[in-house]
């Protein structure tokens, strides 16, 4: 069985290699090759899952050692896989949602001439992501970690001829690199502290290491997680990443890659458990991002960017839960899985809407679409209900557990974190209701509108092909796109309930992450009820603003907060002023210094040597007799010197 693990990674990797090296010959079938290989991975995952269920909870971990990667002295890096319950959860999520999104992309990318390449990149992403969750040591995880970064870079910038897409791709990679720095420093710290960076030995020996060291490692891991999972302060790339094709946003920037940070923290549970400081920082980062993303999500008129804000916020919940320790790990992963379903579904729905609306992304130019796209409306609607935590749907179970766990942290911290989580739930209800109302309800604002304003370029360049300025004719998407949406919608509805019956999910993950039931200071029922109350309040406000009143096509100026939120709470402006401008000045002045100072010193030396030789040159006046004089003079001096030396 364990020999199958490598195949999980190998199948999509093969697909990527074939599709990217295969050339134009494969254009006709490339997308199906990609989809089938993704599905192969999923099937292998299912087989392994079935095998795992047949064993006792403590014997479920499979390992596979391929070969020694880097052997240098004590530094022994292995290529080895470890498949336990945590990895298994991810494998199923990644390959399952991944296969669905491959299928969806067959329809979505139908008119793109570079579709084969797109599927090559998607397969590359799957391989890297599976490697990330299957690695049995941190260095191999790092390979997957950067691999998904690369795939994300390639896919965000898939429409490279658009400068905005190319810039967004570069930004995503760079911000992620800052996080990667954290991961590499963490690995170095592990190596100097434990002499190894394999999961098993490191996590088993945390008891012997000093708490300060563990805090340092934990914080570095958290930095890495912040980069990949778009947490404050490294969140700025996620909004721009929406420049990529929508299936990419669904798969990479909602369901899987951005949750890698949560995986990293939960995987390193023992390190965080041993360091309360690192845990505290983790919860703070989660709580801050949770609000940050939610606020940004409220102000965006671009449907994908609103969803991106929401993703950020939901991952904030997961990070918050992961920071709570054993009372939260399980729920972080549970929310991660349910979120994978409903957020991927929401993005696919958004893609379907854009597909039918000439790739328009501005929600102010939507409205009343439920009549034209019934399947999209229903699936999107179910995703919407799931994310706001409507009782009985997936999001309800997972989010509610996180809020409970936050309160259960105890003390003032618990109250603060719990309240923030509750507030976040209210804002979530608000912005998601807003999205829902602006898109599917109200008047049909896309009719009789003036031509698209030039400063709002549509995200998808395909628009140019079928006339961006014509009035859109909203229509339902083809089956190949709606089927994945339906499957995901089913997941969004039932996954949470399925996991929660008899606390299945807790028992499933407990052997890996540990689980402790947290008791909130108030009863669980109170928490649930207050969640319901804030949900209704949030949704109600949104209804009052966007359901009962017509939505203006041109965005009103809005309050100071709205305007700041539209600009990602000014974080980008800060980056621009401090990092971009500052960096430009720094490099420019360094170029100047290199040219004038460093080079100048050497050139100055050369010039002074040149000047000296210019003087000396005058001695060479061309008169043979003066040369003879100097010869005789020199000989005389030499002889005199010799005589003097010997005479003395």
């Amino acid at each position, binding site marked *: 069985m364990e020999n199958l693990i490598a195949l999980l990674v190998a199948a999509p990797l093969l697909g990527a290699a074939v599709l990217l090296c295969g050339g134009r010959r494969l254009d006709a079938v490339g997308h199906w090759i990609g989809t089938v290989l993704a599905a192969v991975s999923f099937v292998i995952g299912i087989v392994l899952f079935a095998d795992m269920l047949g064993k006792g909870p403590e014997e479920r971990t499979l390992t596979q050692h391929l070969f020694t990667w880097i052997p240098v002295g*004590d530094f022994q890096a292995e290529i080895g896989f470890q498949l336990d319950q945590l990895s298994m959860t991810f494998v199923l999520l990644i390959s399952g949602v991944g296969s669905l999104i491959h299928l969806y992309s067959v329809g979505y990318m139908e008119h793109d001439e570079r579709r084969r390449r797109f599927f090559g990149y998607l397969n590359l992403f799957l391989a890297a992501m599976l490697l990330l969750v299957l690695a049995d040591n941190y260095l191999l995880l790092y390979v997957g970690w950067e691999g998904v970064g690369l795939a994300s870079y390639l896919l965000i910038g898939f429409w490279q001829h658009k400068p905005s897409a190319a810039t967004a791709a570069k930004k995503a990679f760079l911000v992620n690199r800052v996080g990667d720095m954290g991961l590499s420093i963490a690995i170095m710290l592990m190596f100097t502290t434990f002499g190894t960076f394999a999961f098993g030995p490191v996590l088993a020996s945390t008891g012997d290491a000093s708490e300060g060291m563990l805090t340092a490692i934990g914080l570095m891991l958290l930095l890495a997680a912040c980069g990949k999972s778009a947490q404050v302060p490294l969140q700025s790339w996620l909004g721009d990443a929406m420049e990529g094709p929508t299936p990419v946003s669904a798969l990479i920037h909602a369901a899987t890659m951005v949750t890698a940070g949560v995986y990293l923290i939960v995987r390193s549970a023992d390190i965080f458990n041993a360091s309360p400081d690192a845990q505290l920082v983790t919860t703070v980062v989660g709580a801050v991002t949770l609000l940050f993303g939610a606020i940004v999500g409220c102000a965006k008129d671009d449907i994908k960017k609103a969803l991106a804000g929401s993703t950020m916020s939901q991952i904030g919940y997961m990070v918050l839960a992961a920071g709570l320790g054993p009372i939260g790990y399980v729920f972080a992963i549970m929310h991660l899985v349910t979120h994978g379903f409903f957020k991927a579904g929401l993005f696919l729905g958004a893609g379907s809407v854009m597909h039918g609306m000439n790739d328009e992304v501005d929600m102010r130019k939507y409205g009343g679409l439920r009549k034209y796209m019934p399947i999209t409306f229903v699936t999107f609607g179910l995703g919407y209900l799931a994310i706001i935590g409507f009782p009985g749907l997936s999001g309800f179970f997972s989010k509610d557990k996180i809020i409970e766990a936050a309160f259960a942290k105890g003390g003032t911290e618990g109250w603060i974190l719990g309240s923030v989580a509750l507030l976040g739930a209210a804002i979530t209800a608000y912005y998601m209701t807003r999205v829902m109302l602006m898109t599917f309800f109200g008047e049909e604002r896309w009719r009789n509108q003036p031509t698209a304003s030039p400063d709002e370029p549509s995200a998808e360049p395909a628009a140019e092909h079928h006339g961006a300025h014509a009035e859109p004719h909203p229509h339902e998407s083809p089956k190949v796109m709606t089927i994945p949406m339906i499957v995901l919608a089913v997941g969004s509805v039932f996954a949470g309930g399925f996991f929660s019956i008899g606390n299945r999910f807790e028992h499933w993950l407990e052997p890996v992450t540990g689980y402790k039931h947290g008791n909130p200071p108030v009863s669980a029922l109170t928490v649930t009820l207050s969640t319901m109350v804030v949900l209704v309040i949030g949704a109600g406000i949104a209804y009052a603003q966007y359901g009962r009143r017509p939505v203006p096509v041109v965005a009103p100026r809005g309050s100071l907060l709205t305007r700041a939120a539209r600009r990602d709470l000014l974080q980008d402006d800060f980056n621009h002023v401090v990092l971009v401008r500052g*960096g430009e000045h720094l*490099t420019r002045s360094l170029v100047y210094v290199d040219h004038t100072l460093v080079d100048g010193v050497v050139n100055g030396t050369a010039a002074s040597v040149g000047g000296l030789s210019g003087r000396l040159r005058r001695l060479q006046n061309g008169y043979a007799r003066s040369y003879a004089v100097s010869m005789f003079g020199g000989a005389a001096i030499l002889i005199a010197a010799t005589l003097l030396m010997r005479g003395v």
Partner: protein
Amino acid sequence: MTTMSQVVNAGFPLLTVTAGLPAVGAIATAAVPAARRTAAKWLALLVSLATLVLAVVILVRFEPGGDRYQLNESHAWIADFGVRYELGVDGIAVALIALTALLIPFVILAGWHDADPLETKSSRWRPTQGFFALILAVEAMVILSFEATDVFLFYIFFEAMLIPMYFLIGGFGDRAHQHGDKAAATQRSYAAVKFLLYNLVGGLIMLAAVIGLYVVAGTFSLSEIADARASGNLDMATGTERWLFLGFFFAFAVKAPLWPLHTWLPNAMGEATAPVAVLITAVVDKVGTFAMLRFCLQLFPEASKWATPVILVLALISIIYGALLAVGQRDIKRLVAYASISHFGFIIMGIFAMTTQGQSGATLYMVNHGISTAALMLVAGFLISRRGSRLIADYGGVQKVAPVLAGTFLIGGLATLSLPGLAPFVSEFLVLVGTFARYPVIGIIATFGIVLAALYTLVLYQRTMTGPVKAEVAEMPDLKLRELVVVAPLIALLIFLGVYPKPVTDIVNPAVQHTMSDVQQKDPQPDVEAAK
């Protein structure tokens, strides 16, 4: 094959032949009649491939676990001064000889048309022959300086390779700039003279140190001096050792190049044709870092330890400074040059971190940097030859018209930024971990280099390859077969060594262990005994 192996076993001078073959090939190539230009190219290519075969034989014959120096040859040369013709290779030298022999065929193939006459000139036009002969001459001298175990012998080849390099830089510019262009020719000769002067000054100081070493030790033989030092028979006064060390190190730091002695490299790489630029940075400069490992550490262990803090800081400055300057460049080739300066900072840092990981990583880095820079620079050269400009701003949207070119360029760039899965990641991480284990603060600051590397690479890629297609590049053809033959094996090698670097580390590790015991250093031990 028995006969072959018998010949090899019976004192066959494999090392001499490996270096001699390109030397003879250089003369033969230069002697090809002027009209038979293409024959000269093929001859040079065949010679370089034959040298590659010999390098592979060395690789196979070398036993990693055996003696420190193997395949030794020793003959009296200038008996009065105790100068001997002594050759021998350790694992580090073997790896670098293999790299050199590997890259030269690609350099020749990439520069296939770089020295063609612009129009059919008189039949006496000979620079084509000269170009390829000079490349082979450089190869011979570089290989010999990797092989020499006599300090004086090494010095000779270390200096002699400047001569063919000078002519390669000064004599052959980008075809884009036309052979006859006055301004370009002036810049080129400025760059060539600068290259020559910098390295000559370094070499001169080294010569003084070489003579000083002879005065102190009474021999030029590396192994004798090292043995005498190890057994305590040769005591150098602390001051003497430090001065000698500085003399050697200065020359190597110029060649490497280390900040602030680096300014010749951007000029030389900017003005030279792309294959020659690869020759400079991927092959010739490696002699500098190689010599630090072999001569500085082995001959002057105490002085090396004494100088370590300063050198590490200089290396760190190189890393950050080179990367920042790369960000600010407008010229593609100069950008790659500054990136190389940053990478050489990593190599030197790894050498002087005095840990197994640092030094193995540094050696691996030399090999990987050679391959990755060759890939990036040669593709950049193909790009430049199509448009006739080195300025980044003159490009845009190339990806749309020449996707294969853009793809290979991206892979070269990703290798430069040390993406995991490609070879440079392994070496860079080893260097970082090796440095971090002993000097955590320097290790952490150096880690910023990986962010900056991503910045300059991706900015370069974005500005040249993405965005709307510029009118001037709209007709740009994609890579031709010859160019693909150059790039594809390099990329395959980058991936292979990224996934399975063990063949190289196995050869390098024992040599590094020797060096570590020369400097009497042990790796820092972890704080915690990890559970198994």
